[in-house]
């Protein structure tokens, strides 16, 4: 399996506070990679550096074997970012939202129209394409959020807590679609506070705390760090053991 994303000594400092501390991770092409950590662990900052939204203080990000900093234009078009907050225009119709965000990657004309249909169909919103996003339920908005990020057929999808605040049916639908995207060849980075989701879909999981990587491996490997019998412990218990039960009031 080849490495699609690699961080090398990735560090972010704000004044004296180190938010991400010498992070070295490698994500293999075609896997679903989970990123866990308590509040303030540095997950969002790491995602932002991978998406080139903030500059690392030290270190680098390599994507598809190339430096992200030096090949931004080429590499960012292969990346799909689904943020935690709903990044859609509520005053636009569903298809207009997908058109807007897909076109930003240079797709136009008939190809754009086809991608719009494909993306809306993929998330199950074809029949609601002419409806304004403001009239959608929370789950539908989340699905539209995904549709807006996949239209340009990215190689790497980054999901930042995509199932926050939605019903179990919508959540199950989204998780199934993530697995389907992965089967279709996309690599996925997935962050969430819902341990059962992460355990259900991720091939490997990294746990961060205080900006550092404290454990990485499959769900089973992480459980075996704590106990011998992996079936006797949940991922949540592993997480709490490794990061502690102290509240993170950031």
């Amino acid at each position, binding site marked *: 399996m080849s490495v699609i994303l690699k961080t090398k000594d990735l560090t972010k400092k704000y004044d004296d506070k180190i938010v991400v501390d010498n992070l070295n991770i490698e994500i293999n092409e075609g896997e679903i990679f989970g990123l866990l950590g308590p509040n303030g662990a540095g997950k969002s900052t790491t995602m932002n550096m991978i998406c080139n939204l903030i500059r690392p203080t030290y270190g680098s990000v390599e994507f598809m074997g190339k430096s992200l900093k030096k090949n931004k234009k080429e590499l960012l078009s292969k*990346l799909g*970012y689904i*943020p935690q907050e709903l990044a859609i225009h509520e005053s636009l119709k569903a298809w207009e939202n997908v058109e807007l965000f897909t*076109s*930003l*990657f240079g797709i136009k004309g008939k190809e754009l129209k086809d991608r719009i249909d494909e993306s809306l169909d993929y998330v199950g919103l074809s029949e609601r394409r002419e409806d304004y996003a403001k009239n959608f339920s929370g789950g539908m908005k989340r699905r539209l959020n995904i549709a807006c990020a996949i239209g340009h057929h990215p190689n790497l999808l980054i999901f930042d807590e995509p199932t926050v605040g939605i019903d179990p049916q919508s959540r199950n639908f989204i998780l199934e679609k993530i697995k389907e995207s992965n089967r279709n060849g996309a690599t996925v980075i997935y962050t969430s506070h819902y341990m059962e989701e992460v355990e259900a879909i991720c091939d490997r999981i990294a746990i961060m705390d205080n900006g550092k990587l404290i454990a990485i491996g499959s769900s089973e490997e992480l459980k075996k760090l704590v106990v011998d019998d992996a079936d006797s412990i949940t991922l949540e218990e592993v997480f709490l053991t490794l990061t502690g039960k102290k509240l993170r009031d950031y």
Partner: protein
Amino acid sequence: MIRYLIKNNIKLLSRNIVNVFLYIFAPIAVMAVLISAFSSMMEKYEGIDKFEVGYKVESGSVFETQIDNIKNVLKEQGITAVMIDTDNPKECIDDNGFGGYVEFSKNSYKLHLSEDKEVEGRMLEYIVTSCVDEINLNMKKANENIETDKLGANVEKTIADESVTNKEFTVSHQRHMPEVSSTDYYGIIWIIYFSWCSILCLTGIYSSEKKHNLVRKYRVSNLNELQIYLSKFIPSTLVIMISLMISTFISIFALGVHWGNLLLSFAIVLSSSLAALALGIMLQSIFESFVVTIILVFGLVWVMGFFGGTFETYMFLNVSESVKLLSPLYHANRACVELSVMGHSQYVVSAISYTLLIAFACSVVAVCAGVIRRRGRA
């Protein structure tokens, strides 16, 4: 790449009912109120032909050498100055039917205006004030050491220097406005004023972008700052122009406003909108707060409008010409009103070039501010 972003921003702008109200109906409503409120004052002005004013000049006054120039300027405006030495200017005004009376003392002048002939009085005040401004300016040129803050300070210094006191100065010709009705005046300048409020149309877009952190998503797609700027500038210009065009046509057919050269006038309105939008987007780029942007824009536009003749007609505004010229609204108002009344104006070029310069400068700063902010983050 940003073609579809522009297209969808146009949809967002035109679907916002507030924009429709603000740029189509609000100017008409304001115009109708002001036309009605000022129609009687402007009608009096339309009827003004020639009138007389009284004056006296104190011996040794700095105005002694300039009084003929001042009288000539008044004559060109249809005002005859009659020298009458009196200690009771009010009685003199009433007895002779004067529009006003001017007392030129050693270092200053005093205006006595007729209570009955309000418009004549204001004309006299405007012309005499303008003449004194010109005298100040010429004195400054003659003697570089003179400070120009107040006439009194200038005059004291020039009295000490006889070579300056006795020098003849010319006062440039003060063109006073031909008759303009309140309908035409307020019908035109409020379209211009609303064009300077163009940034308001972007409220919905900025609000949505902030709420959903959309600019972050644009940056992940590698849009540069110029593209992000143009994606707002172009759609808002189009929507504003169409709205103000509709408003203009309503003003013509419903209120009877005469625009004169409609094409040139609309070029001035367009360039004003471009300047206003660039200014607003620049401030938003710097402060990243739409509330701060709105406060600053409206504050600036109010001040420019005040000195530019938006609230009180510019021909009666008791402010020096050099201050008025600083306001782009003065150039735009004067150009469009003169186009309406006279069919031509020497302010058209300055109105368009001044606003285009503002638009260009603010656009550059807006893009640079975005680049600097982005570099700080990424």
